C-alpha cells in the first residue's frame, strides 16, 4: 500500500537522520579517546565542578573512590538543578536576548578553547610541524564560523549540523577526562535527575516546557535538527504550499479518508549534563485537522565545571499527511532550521565553570523534522568514550545499548504521549552492558590465562 510503505520509508528515514549524527559523534569521540589516551591512564584529571567534592587518585581504596564519586555527582546534580532553575527564571522574565548571547559566547569558548586544546593534543601526538600563525588563523576561523552557524538563524543546514556535532564531540571528550568512578556515577545521577526533573511537577524541565508551550515560544538552547524528509516535489513557485511529511497517527477504526491524530513524542536532545527530560505534550486543536505539539524537553547538564542545562523543545506536528499541506500558520511555514535555540557552553578552562544550555530530548520541528538536543549527543558519547578506555568490546556493546535505548525511548513516547525522560533508558542500558561486558571479558581473560598456564606452558 502506497500509504503504509511511504510512512515506513519516511519514518525509517527520519530515524536514520537522527541516529546518523549520534553515531558519528560517538564514533569520533571513541577515535579521539583511543588516539589520545593510549599512553597515559588519565594521569591528570580535570578539576571542575564535577570533582569539587573529591579528587580521585589511584591510590585510594575502592570504597573511598565510591563515596567520593557519589559526592561529586551529587554536587554536580545540585549545580545543574541550580542552573536549570536560573534558566527557567530567565526564560520567565523573557531575557531571551541575554540567553542567546550567552549561548553564542559559550559556543565560541567551547569551539575556540576546547577545540584548541584538543587539536593541540593531536598536534603534539602526531608531531605535526604546523606553525602558530597558521594554527591560530585556522582556529579563529573555525570558532567564528561555528558561532555564526549555530547562532544565526539561516545558515547552510549541513554546516550547522556539522558544527553542532563538533560541539558535542568536544564537550564529550572533555568529560571523558574525568576520573572513572566520577564519570559513571555522574551518568547515573544525571539519568536519575532527568527522570525526576521531567516527571515531577516541580521539575525545572517540566516548568520550562510548560512555560514555552503556554507562550508558544521556543526555548533558547542548542538543538540538532534533522533535515525533513520530503518525498514529494513541490511547486517552487508558490510559497504557500509546502509539502512535508508529518507524522500520522491512525486511530483505530479510522479509514484512510480521515485525518488522524498522531501524537508523536519527539525527544529533544539537548546537551545538558544533568538532565534529560522528554516531555511530550500533545494538543489537538480541531478534529478535522489534527495538530499536536509535543514538546520534549530534556535538560542535560554537562561539563564537569559547567552546569549544562539542556532543554529540548520540540514541537511535533501531530498531523501527518501525505500530499500537499497548505500552510496558513506562519509558525509551520518557517523553514526547517529554527534558530530559536541556542546553546550556551561555558569554557572549561581551569576551574571556570561553564554552563551549557543544551537541551535534551527528541522532538519534531515545526516542519516535521526530528530535533535532538545536544545534551543527549554529549552524554551518549561520554558513555561510549569511557567504554573505549577499557576495551573495544565494551564500545560495541554500549553503542548497541544506546541505540536500542533511543529506539525504546521513541516507542515509549509514542505509547505514553507525555513527558518522559529520554536519557535514563539509554544510560541504564549502556551502563548495564558496560559492566556486564567488562565482567565477561575479565572472566574470559582469566579462563584463557588459566588454560594457557595449564596446557601451553607445561607442554
Amino acid at each position, binding site marked *: 500500500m502506497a500509504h503504509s510503505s511511504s510512512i515506513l520509508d519516511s519514518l525509517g528515514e527520519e530515524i536514520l537522520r537522527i541516529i546518523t549524527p549520534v553515531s558519528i559523534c560517538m564514533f569520533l569521540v571513541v577515535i579521539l579517546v583511543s588516539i589520545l589516551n593510549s599512553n597515559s591512564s588519565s594521569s*591528570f584529571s580535570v578539576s571542575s565542578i564535577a570533582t569539587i567534592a573529591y579528587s580521585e587518585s589511584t591510590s585510594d581504596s575502592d570504597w573511598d573512590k565510591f563515596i567520593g564519586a557519589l559526592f561529586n555527582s551529587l554536587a554536580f546534580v545540585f549545580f545543574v538543578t541550580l542552573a536549570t532553575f536560573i534558566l527557567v527564571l530567565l526564560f520567565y522574565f523573557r531575557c531571551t536576548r541575554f540567553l542567546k548571547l550567552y549561548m553564542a559566547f559559550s559556543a565560541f569558548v567551547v569551539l575556540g578553547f576546547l577545540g584548541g586544546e584538543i587539536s593541540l593534543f593531536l598536534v*603534539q601526538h602526531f608531531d605535526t610541524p604546523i606553525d602558530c600563525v597558521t594554527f591560530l588563523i585556522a582556529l579563529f576561523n573555525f570558532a567564528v564560523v561555528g558561532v555564526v552557524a549555530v547562532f544565526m538563524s539561516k545558515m547552510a543546514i549541513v554546516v550547522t549540523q556539522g558544527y553542532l556535532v563538533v560541539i558535542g564531540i568536544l564537550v564529550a571528550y572533555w568529560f571523558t577526562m574525568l576520573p572513572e568512578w566520577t564519570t559513571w556515577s555522574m551518568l547515573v545521577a544525571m539519568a536519575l535527575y532527568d527522570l525526576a526533573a521531567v516527571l515531577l511537577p516541580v521539575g525545572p524541565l517540566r516548568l520550562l516546557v510548560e512555560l514555552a508551550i503556554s507562550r508558544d515560544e521556543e526555548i533558547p538552547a542548542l538543538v540538532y535538527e534533522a533535515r525533513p524528509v520530503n518525498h514529494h516535489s513541490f511547486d517552487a513557485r508558490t510559497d504557500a504550499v509546502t509539502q512535508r511529511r508529518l507524522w500520522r497517527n491512525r486511530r483505530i477504526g479510522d479509514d484512510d479518508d480521515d485525518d488522524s491524530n498522531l501524537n508523536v513524542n519527539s525527544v529533544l536532545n539537548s546537551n545538558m549534563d544533568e538532565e534529560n527530560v522528554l516531555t511530550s505534550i500533545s494538543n489537538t486543536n480541531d478534529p478535522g485537522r489534527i495538530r499536536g505539539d509535543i514538546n520534549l524537553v530534556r535538560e542535560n547538564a554537562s561539563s564537569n565545571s559547567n552546569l549544562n542545562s539542556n532543554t529540548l523543545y520540540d514541537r511535533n506536528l501531530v498531523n501527518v499527511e501525505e500530499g500537499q499541506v497548505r500552510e496558513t500558520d506562519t509558525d509551520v511555514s518557517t523553514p526547517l532550521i529554527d534558530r530559536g535555540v541556542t546553546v550556551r557552553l561555558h569554557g572549561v578552562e581551569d576551574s571556570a565553570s561553564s554552563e551549557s544550555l543544551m537541551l535534551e530530548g527528541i522532538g519534531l520541528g515545526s516542519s516535521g523534522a526530528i530535533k535532538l538536543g545536544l545534551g543527549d549527543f554529549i552524554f551518549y558519547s561520554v558513555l561510549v568514550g569511557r567504554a573505549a578506555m577499557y576495551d573495544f568490546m565494551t564500545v560495541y556493546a554500549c553503542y548497541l545499548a544506546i541505540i536500542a535505548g533511543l529506539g525504546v525511548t521513541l516507542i515509549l513516547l509514542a505509547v505514553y504521549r507525555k513527558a518522559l525522560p529520554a536519557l535514563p533508558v539509554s544510560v541504564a542500558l549502556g551502563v548495564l552492558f558496560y559492566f556486564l561486558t567488562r565482567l565477561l571479558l575479565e572472566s574470559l581473560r582469566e579462563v584463557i590465562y588459566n588454560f594457557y598456564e595449564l596446557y601451553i606452558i607445561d607442554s
Partner: protein
Amino acid sequence: MEHNNNNNNPNRNPNPIRNPLSSSAPVWPTIDGALGLTEEDSVSYARNFYNFGFALLPLLWAVNCFYFWPVLRHSRSFPRIRPYVVGSAIGLTVFTALLCSWALTFSLGGERLFGPVWDQLVMYNLADRLGLTTWS
C-alpha cells in the same frame, strides 16, 4: 482519498528547482533550496558574509560560496547576489593559496630554511612553553 498527486505522475521532476521560462534556472539561491533563504534575504546575507570575511576569515568566504552554490553555477541568475559570491570565491582562493604556501614552506623547509626561529614558531614547542596543554 488522500493520495500524493505525484504518485500518479512519475515524470515529475523531483528536483525542486523549476522555472517556467527555463528549466535550468533555479528559483532558490541557496543550496538548501526551499528550506533556505529567499532571494531578498540572501542579498544581505551574501553581503555580510563577504564583508566579514575580510577579517581574516576565509572560512566565511568558503561557507558563502557553499551556501550560495546555485548562484555560482548559474551565471545569469541572481544578479544582485552574484558579485558577493564571486568576490568571496576569489578571496577564498587567494587567501588559501597564500596560507597554504606559507604553511607548506614552514613545514617542509623546517630548520634548514628558517634557522632557530623555526623552533620558536612551531606549535608543539609553543604549547609546551606556554603550558597550553596542561588543563589546570
